[in-house]
């Protein structure tokens, strides 16, 4: 552990110049805020002692000049970026929210000069106060925004900085960027695993919570894959690097989460539209307000004050921040729990979803089938030799189960010829000169092979939720193999919670009806669509969509079209990139509890967005008329404006207290 902290310390000193933007902006606002107040406090004292107590510390015109001098740096030096940005916006017609503050403060400041020649009241002190409150608001807002992005930033800094790689018999420490694929890395207890790899020596428990949200450590031994940035707990592991740099699991997660921040939540559209015309509209309204008040009261000072109030109170900041801050906090909490929200739209759509379709294999079940029954009329070893030899060529999980069984029984497998996959049915090929077919009833029926003798046994296996695999050679059935794929440990509980929340659940699978029903019954799912060929899953989703919005939960390449077709696609993160690419939400841990959490998180985040938009609209609807009516002093208007943005960001932060 001491090595770690030393390493991290070194990292800190190496990168101290590399301060994140959030922090840079926060520091800059803080500096501006303090400097502004140093000048604004004397201004306030001068102004208040005159207005409240009638004490004139200086002669009127001298006081005006002093205030003008004090206010100048506040507006034109500390507020330089804001003024420049705002004025730039005015001239290029790329209006932004600074345009309003810039106009308001510059006009107010200018009244200071005009007041000396006696035209209007002096608002130059007020302009400095507006800027001071503006920077204060921005500072508080930047702190809150920094908090909102905390979880996501943590991801960015999660990766290891150094790795100890083996060169010959020597361990040398190198920067992570120097690690190459194939390097052997030694990872001591307490250290971060530097990059994705495969264990080649050693055994240990690894804490993967930072990636998957799974709180229990995972045991790793030779042959297991490990993820970079997870922490090795108790043994030394030697791993071979399989992925580096941008290709690692962590890099993918970061990319997904970052890109998600740029996606739009549909509800935001109205706010965006309003924001885009808001600034020019307010400038026009403010000019009209001036003329209106001047015409009816003949009081230019009053008219200017009200026009300035309108300018500064009407910043649509809160409207603009409402959605992105909530989305950011929401996806941060998600990332922490292994739920990656890829599309902002999914958050909104999730609310409408009533039906959840689950793929069976690898989603509800572990996806690691095991052989449970072997029923054969020939010698079991010979039988497994034929079946295993053909299956070893196939990638299907069931094939792997059969091959594993053969290996377990120490059966030597032999080569095959003319291997062919019949998708959704089985496989065929030539083993030792025999034409072997292994698969389900469909395969046998298609090839007119009679399996009636085994039908009762097949039905019995299916009733137990097992898949019955028929093995035939030279058109004669040799026997059947029962394969079972256990439920994931949390599937039952997750389905129960979904039913509790009145979701309709459907299981979809390529298995036959009986096996599928038996598994569904175990999991607590009532509706089953069985015998679905991989390419037809998408069609079934379309059919179910006729009755409302659906979410599809699945993994694997076969599920990609169905994930895309569903209103919300939830991909189980087992590392299959295609499925992850087509999911709107990706579950790193890949269990059904994640589905429940993803739904809760989406709903909570969307509720927060709605709340934020409500408050932002509410603020503008109340505040602008108040300013128009001349009931708000410009400084009060600015305080209200700053408060509204801070409130919205603060409200988004409350989402972090939500249990999902």
């Amino acid at each position: 552990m001491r090595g770690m902290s030393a390493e991290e310390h070194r990292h800190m000193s190496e990168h101290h110049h590399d301060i994140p933007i959030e922090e840079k902006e926060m520091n800059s606002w803080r500096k501006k805020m303090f400097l502004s107040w140093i000048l604004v406090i004397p201004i306030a004292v001068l102004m208040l002692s005159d207005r409240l107590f009638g004490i004139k510390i200086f002669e009127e015109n001298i006081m005006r000049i002093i205030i003008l001098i004090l206010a100048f740096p506040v507006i034109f030096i500390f507020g330089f970026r804001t003024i420049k940005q705002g004025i730039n916006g005015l001239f290029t017609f790329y209006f932004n929210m600074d345009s309003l503050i810039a106009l308001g403060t510059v006009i107010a400041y200018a009244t200071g000069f005009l007041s000396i020649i006696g035209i209007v009241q002096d608002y130059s002190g007020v302009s400095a106060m507006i800027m001071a409150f503006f920077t204060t608001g921005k500072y508080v807002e930047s702190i809150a925004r920094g908090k909102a992005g905390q979880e996501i930033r943590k991801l960015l800094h999660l990766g290891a900085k150094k790795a100890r790689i083996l060169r010959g018999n020597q361990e040398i420490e190198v920067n992570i960027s120097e690690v190459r694929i194939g390097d052997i890395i030694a990872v001591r207890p307490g250290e971060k695993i530097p990059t994705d790899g495969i264990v080649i020596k050693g055994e240990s428990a690894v804490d993967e919570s930072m990636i998957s949200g799974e709180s229990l450590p995972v045991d790793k031994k030779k042959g297991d894959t490990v993820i970079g940035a997870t922490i090795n707990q108790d043994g030394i592991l030697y791993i071979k690097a399989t992925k580096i740099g941008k290709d690692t699991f962590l890099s993918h997660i970061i990319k997904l989460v970052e890109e998600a921040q740029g996606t739009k939540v549909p509800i935001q559209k109205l706010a965006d539209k309003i924001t885009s015309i808001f600034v020019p509209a307010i400038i026009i309204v403010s000019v009209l307000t001036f003329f209106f008040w001047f015409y009816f009261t003949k009081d230019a000072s009053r008219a200017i004050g009200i026009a300035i109030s309108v300018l500064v109170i009407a910043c649509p900041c809160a409207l603009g921040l409402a959605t992105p801050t909530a989305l950011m906090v929401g996806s941060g909490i998600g990332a922490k729990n292994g739920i990656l929200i890829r599309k902002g739209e999914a958050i909104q759509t999730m609310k409408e979803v009533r039906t959840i379709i689950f793929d069976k294999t690898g989603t509800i079940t572990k996806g690691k089938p095991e052989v449970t029954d072997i029923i054969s009329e020939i010698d079991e070893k010979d039988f497994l030799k034929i079946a295993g030899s053909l299956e070893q060529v196939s990638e299907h999980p069931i094939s792997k189960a059969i091959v594993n069984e053969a290996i377990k029984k120490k059966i030597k497998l032999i080569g095959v010829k003319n291997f062919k996959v019949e998708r959704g049915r089985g496989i065929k090929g030539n083993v030792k000169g025999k034409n072997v077919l292994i698969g389900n009833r469909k395969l046998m029926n298609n090839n007119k092979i009679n399996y009636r003798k085994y039908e009762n046994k097949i039905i019995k296996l299916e009733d137990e939720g097992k898949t019955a695999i028929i093995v035939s050679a030279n058109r004669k059935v040799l026997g059947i193999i029962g394969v079972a794929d256990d439920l994931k440990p949390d599937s039952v509980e997750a389905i129960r919670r979904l039913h509790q929340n009145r979701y309709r659940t459907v299981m979809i699978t390529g298995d036959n009806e009986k096996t599928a029903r038996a598994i569904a019954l175990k999991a607590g799912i009532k509706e089953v669509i069985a015998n679905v060929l991989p390419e037809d899953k998408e069609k079934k989703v379309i059919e179910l969509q006729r009755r409302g919005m659906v979410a599809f939960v699945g993994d694997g390449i076969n599920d990609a079209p169905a994930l895309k077709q569903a209103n919300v696609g939830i991909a189980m993160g087992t590392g299959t990139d295609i499925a992850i690419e087509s999911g709107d939400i990706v579950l790193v841990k890949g269990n059904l509890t994640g589905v429940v959490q993803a739904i809760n998180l989406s709903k909570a985040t969307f509720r927060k967005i709605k709340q934020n938009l409500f408050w932002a609209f509410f603020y503008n609807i109340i505040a602008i008329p108040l300013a128009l009516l001349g009931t708000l002093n410009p400084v009060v208007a600015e305080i209200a404006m700053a408060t509204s943005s801070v409130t919205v960001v603060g409200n988004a932060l409350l989402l972090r207290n939500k249990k999902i």
Partner: protein
Amino acid sequence: MKKLKLTIEGMHCASCAANIERAVKKVKGVKDVVVSLMTHKCFIEIENADEEEIKKAIKKVGYKIADIEEE
């Protein structure tokens, strides 16, 4: 088709993000542009676009580019 990821300094309001999107979209060859106010990132998809033009467009509306990454 090429993807760029820019880190942008000086954005602090939604209209800033919208302005950058609007300005970059006008550059020839830009297929898609998405700006995230919260992460200070700007994702651009381009086909035969002049990257200098994009940089200029962003500077013109008043923002600083802190970093450019190609994907």
